[in-house]
């Protein structure tokens, strides 16, 4: 059932300005044309739209590297508490509650990552990467070093490359070894006096732990570079290993991945950044700390702050959910979350008919669709009522099906997922090509959509 656009239900043009206006007409627009609909009509519109959308509560969502966990409901209630709805420009004395939560989350994240100081300001993981690289840059500059390169493995998230570039660095791409991990020789060749940092995910996007992490750290540090940890896969390690203990100097946390804040159809997220103590003076401003004497909390500008990566202090409504999640789970819950996430990935890997190269896996595995097109496999899986894995990435596996069930799936659900994988594995290309059938839209021609971009209702040919 097609749900019309708001503009197809109504557009009303109202004149702006005129005698009753508080502004002279030369300062106002002439008119505003938008849908004018009643609350019942809007309630039905958005209810219907929601029904055309798949969320974590619709079924399994095994997107590799995206860590789509169940989002505990109570964290929403905590975020909605009216006492938390304050303006950031209030003086510290009047927002001690908010600052206490922030200090608490900084402390939690520091413990979990093995880091000495944490900023909550970056509003997403990529913003965290960017903040982290700015910190590295400021650090090197303060040491009188002009380093121009950031090294990134070819299997890394695209954001690593882009964040380094945004900070003005040249990106050096590091080819993976045959076993899917960092190639130490290639690393030694890539790293040198121009190296500002190596950005690394561990476990990597194949779900493999970088066993040579100590050697990697040594190579980078010996060259005077810093080691940056991309927190996307931290869910695999909670309570069992900490980036700070592996030699990482800087890391970001993806709270919607590791700490179960909802992804909101694209965001908002939050990308706190943790650093070792010698980098703490470079954190963004303001930073929260306990006041001397323990009389509450205060915001301050770190001595060599990189400045800001967000106009205020980040995505509060996301951060508080992460805080509540960590407080609920504590040590045993976090450790169990990782244990079950890793168990689920390994179990599912044994249940699917597709070839699964590499291993042993932590939180995710990458199967290969082999002769099938991975994107088509994904479309066909939709017909079985489950969300497909991430496809065609990382490229080290041909026709990759990058699968991460997370800890929230039961054995029953994993078996259903495996059944969907296996059913599709046995189907022919024509069937896959024609999929999906059971979805609110059939296969969408994305190439045509990009060739003739229509990005607003105003741009639609039919003028609707």
């Amino acid at each position: 059932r097609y749900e019309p656009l708001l503009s197809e239900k109504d557009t009303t043009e109202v004149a702006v300005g005129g005698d009753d206006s508080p502004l002279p007409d030369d300062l106002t627009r002439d008119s505003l044309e938008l849908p004018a609909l009643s609350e019942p009509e809007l309630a039905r519109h958005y209810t219907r739209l929601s029904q055309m959308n798949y969320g974590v509560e619709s079924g399994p969502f095994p997107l590799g590297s995206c860590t789509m966990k169940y989002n505990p409901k109570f964290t929403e209630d905590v975020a909605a508490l009216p006492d938390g709805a304050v303006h950031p420009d209030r003086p510290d004395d009047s927002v001690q509650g908010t600052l206490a939560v922030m200090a608490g989350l900084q402390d939690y994240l520091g413990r979990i990552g093995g880091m000495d100081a944490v900023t909550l300001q970056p509003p997403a993981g990529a913003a965290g990467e960017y903040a982290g690289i700015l910190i590295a840059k400021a650090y090197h500059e303060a040491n009188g070093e002009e380093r121009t390169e950031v090294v990134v493995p070819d299997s890394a998230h695209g954001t690593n490359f882009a964040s380094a570039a945004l900070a003005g660095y040249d990106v050096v791409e590091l080819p993976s070894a045959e076993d899917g991990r960092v190639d130490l020789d290639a690393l030694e060749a890539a790293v040198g006096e121009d190296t500002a940092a190596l950005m690394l995910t561990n476990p990597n996007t194949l779900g493999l732990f970088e066993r040579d992490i100590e050697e990697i750290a040594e190579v980078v540090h010996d060259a005077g570079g810093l080691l940056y940890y991309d927190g996307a896969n931290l869910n695999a390690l909670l309570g069992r290993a900490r980036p700070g203990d592996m030699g990482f100097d800087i890391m970001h946390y993806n709270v919607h991945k590791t700490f179960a804040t909802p992804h909101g159809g694209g965001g908002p997220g939050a990308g706190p950044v943790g650093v070792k103590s010698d980098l703490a003076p470079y954190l963004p401003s303001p930073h929260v700390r306990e006041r001397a004497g323990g009389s509450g909390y205060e915001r301050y500008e770190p001595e060599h702050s990189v400045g800001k990566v967000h106009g205020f202090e980040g995505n509060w409504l996301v951060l508080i959910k992460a805080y509540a999640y960590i407080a609920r789970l504590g040590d045993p819950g976090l450790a169990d979350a990782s244990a079950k996430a890793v168990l689920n990935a390994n179990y599912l890997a044994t249940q699917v008919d597709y070839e699964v190269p590499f291993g042993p896996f932590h939180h995710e595995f990458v199967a290969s669709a082999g002769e099938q097109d991975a994107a088509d496999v994904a479309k066909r899986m939709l017909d079985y009522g489950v969300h497909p894995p991430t496809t065609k990435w990382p490229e080290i596996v041909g026709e990759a099906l990058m699968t991460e069930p997370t800890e929230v799936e039961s054995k029953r659900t994993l078996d259903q997922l495996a059944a969907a994988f296996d059913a599709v594995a046995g189907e022919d290309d024509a069937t896959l090509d024609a999929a999906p059938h059971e979805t609110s839209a059939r296969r969408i021609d994305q190439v045509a959509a990009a060739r003739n971009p229509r990005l607003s209702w105003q741009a639609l040919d039919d003028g609707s």
Partner: protein
Amino acid sequence: MTDNDTRGSPYAPHTEAETATMLDAVGVDSEEALFDIPEAVRFTDELGIEPESERAVRRDIERTLSRNDDLTELLGRGHYDHYVPSLVDHLADRSEFLTSYTQYQPEVAQGFLQALFEYQSMLVEFTGLDVANCSMYDAATALGEAATLAQRVRSVSGDRVLVPAHLAAGRRAVLENYADGAGVTVEAYPMDDGAVDTDALEGSMGEDVAMVYAETPTVRGVIEESLSAVGDLAAAQDALFCLGSDPVALALLEEPASVGADVVIGDASTLGLGRSYGMGLGMFATHEDYLRQVPGRLVGAGEDESGRRAYTLTLQTREQHIRKERATSNICTNQAWVALRTAIHAAWLGPDGLVELAEDCVRYPQDLAARLDEIEGVQAPVHDRHHFREFLARTDQPATAVAADLRDRGYAVHDVGEHLLQVCVTERTTAAVDGLVDAVAEVAP
């Protein structure tokens, strides 16, 4: 599950028997055996975080947050407090929206895609520009992205970005970082009684200017009256004209396209979010010419196999997950859910409601400034301009002392200079204005 059960994750459904079966299938004895972590980097200590029941966590956070003072906030400067209708929470919190991922499988994400398409369309109407993306983090990062866009699209390279002297410090600081990476420097141009000093701006212009930025309303609440002149100055040097505003203001003020704006940025969460400690929604709209240089996600209309209209993320080759270091931005996770909220709020108000709200944002500060001006020791507004939501007031007493005294009486205002306060009033605080005026009358003389 028992709420007091804090032995493991309450959100992992495994029974002991299932765990055992699964371990068997994998061929290991224990979960620990699955962790391929070298001994040397294993963490064997405690994190030291005590688990608590859901009930206890809720109670504890509620208590902690209650340590925030109960103040009536008359604060703005980039973060505003408009009434968010109940409908917004109830619809945006539907789990199919809230817990979904980026729409990489559009066939099962038509609902969110359509909502974002509608959001983009609303921004097109507000700005008069051709295209809007479906979110940046906030106004400050959107401004930073505008600067990198200016660098990319400009025919001749320029390494200066001009911004108003009256600019929120946070916004400027973020811009500085983005500009720095792009090899651009940020310079302030002077203001004349709170608005752009166009003569001074003209003097600052040159072919090395990549972008001129102006705001309406400004951080001080001043409605700019010379935007067309700014647009002309920018156009004369082939510099981009980036205008900062927000959807509430744009419901009433001159359409950005009509004053020559090439990019419009700002905080779109003035609709849909309310006070949230500075969390926002970066608005980003521009010309079709720059389409392939736009940062962030774009939703486009297309067709599905049956020929029916369908929506999809489009022009993804601009983005980091495909273009890597040559992407138009590093943004991945954005503020999509806030954009959904903004769209619902805008739709709830409709064009009439939006214009009415915006007109109130002119009337409220005008009225309040006039009342404060009658108080001994206070002159308001400082700038002889039209204002939107907020304005500056000069105090004979030191502003810090006045602000502190007002706080003791339950009101929070900005203390922005030795004798300068800034006061913001919206429909959420207009009922508190009598009390504020009384309080100012007590403490200001």
